[in-house]
Every structure is written in structure tokens, then in C-alpha cells.
């Protein structure tokens, strides 16, 4: 039983949902992000936020996966001041929606003045609404950007135990943990963390405050990042308690501070939830063993389309 606490399902297919459910994902968190191309109207951003609190939740439910999300203005689009101002006006309304477990993903891309302005404004919003925060750390000038993100969280009066610093690597993890933050790792080929490296980190740091996610999106990425890391860790002799923490319990604990994600949502769901049409988790229902299948396998295996 796993949680993927960072997955951009709006960019993924139903094959992925099917493969994730089969691999044992019971819940996932979809952070608001940059969809690969800048939005140029406030309205398109608002519709995007509506999609992740509504339609995407329904889509996930059809596969027995509970869907949660975080809302925020990402760092790239923070550089369009007109858009950013507009989005900031709408954000408080979305922050109070059901299943919104944090403000995020927010932070720095190129570490510009405008990115800094809207990062701070959203940290203040999270603080005022008592919501956790998911921080996106930059791809470039990463080490300094990560330290700076934590400096600013503290300047804005946030409690580190309410903040997940995501996309960590070997160079940033020590400081993140030492300062009391949750350390997220995105198992994402080529640009972020690999799962063999992740297992080495687990050997070194154990499972306290470490969170594994897939960050799967529109790029070359793997929606089974969490399940595959758990399996590899198991093969390499990492104990079950640690695996459970980093692939399930830690994410539940920090995002659970929002009051919007509870284990009972998937452990004790109604047979079919008439109000959301959540179909229940087939693994939990049928007691099947989780299995890792290649997404799209169904497409390859069968010539017939009925």
C-alpha cells in the first residue's frame, strides 16, 4: 500500500492510473504546476485549478485511487506579474476546497525578484490558513536555491515540520533534514533522483522525514517511481518499517496536518461512493498482491478493441 505524494496526473493516461492501482498506490497528491507551456490568461489558470479539485479526482476514483491536490502559483509563471496577481486573488478560494492538502508546489525557478515575491505571499497564505507547504526546489543553482527556500520559509514564520522540501538530492538532503524539514525525493529519470541512488540514501539516512514520490508529468517520467523504489529497497534489505515510512506514512503525516487526507478514505470507503463515484480499491477489495506492470501493457497485449 503506497501513496505517491507528487504526481501530475492531468498529464497522464488511464493506463497509468491502472498500472498505479495495480502496483499498490491507494492515494496520490497532484500538486498544481507548470503544464509545459505558460498560461496567458488568469481564467485558464482558474480552470486548471478547478480541474485538479474536480475532474481529475473523479478520474482517479474510477481506478480506485484517492486523489488529493495542492494549489499554488508555480515559480515559472510567477514571472508573469499580471497573471500572478490575478491568480493570487483566486487562490484563497481554492485553498479551502475539499482534498486540498497543501499550498504548492511553490518556490524558485531562476530565483528572480518576482518569484521571491509570490513565494513569500503564498507562504503567508499557507501560514494564515494553517496548511502545509510543498516547496519545489530549482533545477539550476539547486543547492543555494534550496537553502534560500528554507531561509525564506523561516523568515515568513513557517514551522519546518509543516513544510516538504521536494526534489532533494545527495547534496541538499543533509541540510533539509538538519533544519527540521521533510525531505521529498522525486524518482524521475535523468534530471532528478534515480531509485538505486535513493536506496543508498535510505541506507545512510533511514526513513525519518524522508518522502519518496514520482513527480510523473508530461516529461519522460515513471508513474511507478514509488512502487519500484519500494521493491528495490526491499531487495536491498531495507527494513519494512523504513519502506513504509518513506512510501506511505510520512506523506500521510505531514499532509494530514491539513485535515483533508485520512487513511479511512481508502481503508474504509463506502462500496461505491454515490457522491463521488469512487469505485473502491480493487487491491483492497480482492486482496490481490500488488504487481508492477508496464503502463500500457493492456494496449500491447491485445489486438482486440471492444
Amino acid at each position, binding site marked *: 500500500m503506497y501513496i505517491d505524494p507528487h504526481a501530475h496526473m492531468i498529464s497522464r493516461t488511464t493506463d497509468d492510473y491502472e498500472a498505479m492501482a495495480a502496483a499498490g498506490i491507494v492515494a496520490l497528491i497532484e500538486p498544481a504546476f507548470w503544464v509545459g507551456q505558460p498560461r496567458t490568461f488568469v481564467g485558464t489558470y*482558474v*480552470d486548471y*485549478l*478547478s480541474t485538479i*479539485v*474536480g*475532474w481529475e*479526482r*473523479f478520474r482517479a476514483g474510477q481506478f480506485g485511487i484517492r486523489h488529493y491536490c495542492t494549489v499554488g502559483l508555480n515559480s515559472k509563471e510567477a514571472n508573469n506579474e499580471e497573471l500572478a496577481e490575478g491568480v493570487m486573488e*483566486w487562490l484563497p*478560494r*481554492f485553498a*479551502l*476546497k*475539499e*482534498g486540498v492538502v497543501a499550498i504548492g508546489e511553490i518556490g524558485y525557478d531562476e530565483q528572480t525578484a518576482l518569484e521571491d515575491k509570490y513565494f513569500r505571499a503564498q507562504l503567508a497564505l499557507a501560514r494564515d490558513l494553517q496548511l502545509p507547504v510543498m516547496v519545489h526546489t530549482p533545477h539550476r543553482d539547486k543547492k543555494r536555491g534550496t537553502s534560500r527556500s528554507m531561509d525564506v520559509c523561516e523568515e515568513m514564520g513557517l514551522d519546518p515540520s509543516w513544510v516538504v522540501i521536494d526534489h532533494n538530492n545527495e547534496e541538499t538532503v543533509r541540510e533539509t533534514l538538519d533544519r527540521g524539514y521533510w525531505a521529498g525525493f522525486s524518482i524521475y529519470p535523468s534530471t532528478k533522483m534515480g531509485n538505486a541512488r535513493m536506496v543508498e540514501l535510505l541506507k545512510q539516512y533511514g526513513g525519518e522525514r524522508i518522502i519518496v514520490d514520482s513527480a510523473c508529468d508530461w516529461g519522460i517520467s515513471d508513474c511507478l517511481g514509488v512502487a519500484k523504489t519500494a521493491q528495490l529497497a526491499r531487495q536491498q534489505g531495507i527494513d519494512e518499517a523504513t519502506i513504509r515510512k518513506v512510501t506511505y506514512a510520512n506523506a500521510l503525516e505531514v499532509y494530514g496536518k491539513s*485535515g483533508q487526507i485520512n487513511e479511512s478514505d481508502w481503508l474504509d470507503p463506502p462500496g461505491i461512493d*454515490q*457522491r*463521488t*463515484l469512487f469505485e473502491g480499491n480493487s487491491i483492497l477489495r480482492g486482496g490481490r498482491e500488488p504487481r508492477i506492470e508496464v503502463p500500457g501493457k493492456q494496449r500491447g497485449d491485445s489486438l482486440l478493441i471492444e
Partner: protein
Amino acid sequence: MTTAPMNLLSEWIVRQAGEEGAWFASRLHSLSSGAASEQDLHIFLGLIPRKLGKQDLALTSEDVRRAELAHAGWRPQGWSIDGAARVAALIGYQGPRPFADTFKDLRRTADAGELIALYRGLPLYPEPESLAFEVGEGLRSNMRAVFEAIAHDNPYARDHFDEHRWNHMVLKALFVGSRLSPVVGLDERANPELARILLDYAHERWAAGRAVSPELWRCVGPFIDSLDALDDLQRVMSGTETERKAAVLALTVNQSPRARSLLAASPEVARLVSEGHVDWNNLLQSEAA
């Protein structure tokens, strides 16, 4: 004596909410004062599930009876306490803008649970005709539960839809695998155009080798003659047990000699129907049993 829907909702919510009942009642009162802003409404709507939870609304058969008296066709069975409270907030809110504008704004930013609550409340809002566009958006939704918030146990469609919209709602219900028996006013709003659309749809399904919902024949029954559909009913008659029951139910309203002879070929089912053991409302339940 008839109680207004708003008062019924408040009564049920306060009764079930325990300690938070007072919070709900006082916030609702201030929303109705005319001095509350839309932001106050948004915050109240956001806090409702946090404060009241999301359990089913607990109703007695007397409550259900009073709902029918308060607004014909209103069936609050299956509502949740947070949904009921949100509808009460919308009915109670006295704002400066026309109701449809406030509704549109809420709908554009609604999460899945809010959409369902917004649409379930349709028959109870002020100026119901002004919501025609908003209802269209809900009917077009791909979220089945949102569509069903309009199509099921809700008299708004019966009371306010024109024939075109009504017909497409019924067709869509079948198309997305939804049930017809919870649609309020299905027999009253039967019409030959709908029967023709559904018969075409059945032919399309058969041609593709797919099953046809037995409920479809309820809307075809009254127009069997004008559609020349007896061959089709004969085919349904030779299908599954449930299909045979559906065919009998549909043929029962037809007086032609051939309909009589088709019915005579299934005396067992015809007897169950004539004695009231099988009807359109329990047709699919008996299939599950």
C-alpha cells in the same frame, strides 16, 4: 402543514450536527441578513464539511414525506449533511447580484463534492429559470455523479427543461450507464421524439454487438405503434430475463392484437406485471437480487 424547504434543511442539519449545530444556525442567520459578502459565503461553504462532516443526511420517512409536500418531486434521500448545508446556505444567502451570477461563480471554482451539492439544490433556488445555462454545463459534465445530481431524484428537469434538453438528458443517462428509474417525471415527459431517438440508439447498440439497457423500453412503450416497433419488442422479448420483463412492461401499454399475442407468449412474466410484482422501478433491483 407545509414547511419551506429551507426550514426543513435547517431542522435536519441542526438535529444531526450535535455541537456544531449552533455554529451552522448562527452563520446561516448572518448570511441571510443582507449584510454578508460573497466572501463570507465562500468561507462558510468551505468550512461546512470541516465542521459538519460528510455523513449521509439521516432522514425518517416522515422527513421524506414533508420534503415532497414542501416541493413536489424533491427527494433528499441520498443527500449528505454537508451537501444539505451548502444548499441551505445558497437558498439563505441574500446578496447584491442576481442568484444565477452567484451560482455561476461558485460553479466555476467548485470541487467535485460542491458541484454535486450545487446541482442537487436546483429545484429549491430562487429564479430557477435563470439557471438554464448553468444546468447545461452540469449536464455536459463528464463526472457521472454531477450529471446524476441533476438527472436523478431532482424535479428541476421535469419542471423546467424544454423537450430537446429533456430528451438529451435521458439519452445521456443511458449512454453513460446511469439508471432511468430515479429520473423524476420520466412517464409524464414521455414524447415521440425521445422514443425515436432511443429506438435508433438501441439499433446502434445492437449493430455493435452491445447490450441495451432494459429501462430504455419504458420510454418507447407508449409510441410502439407510431414507431412500428413491435419487431424490436419481439427481439427484446427473447433476451435476458430482465429484458423479457422490460418488453412485457412496454407492451402492456399497447393495445394492438400483435402486442396481445406477444404478451400471451410470456404468461408468467405478464402475470408478475399485472399483479404488480414487477414494475419499472424495481426492474433492475430484481436483476441484482
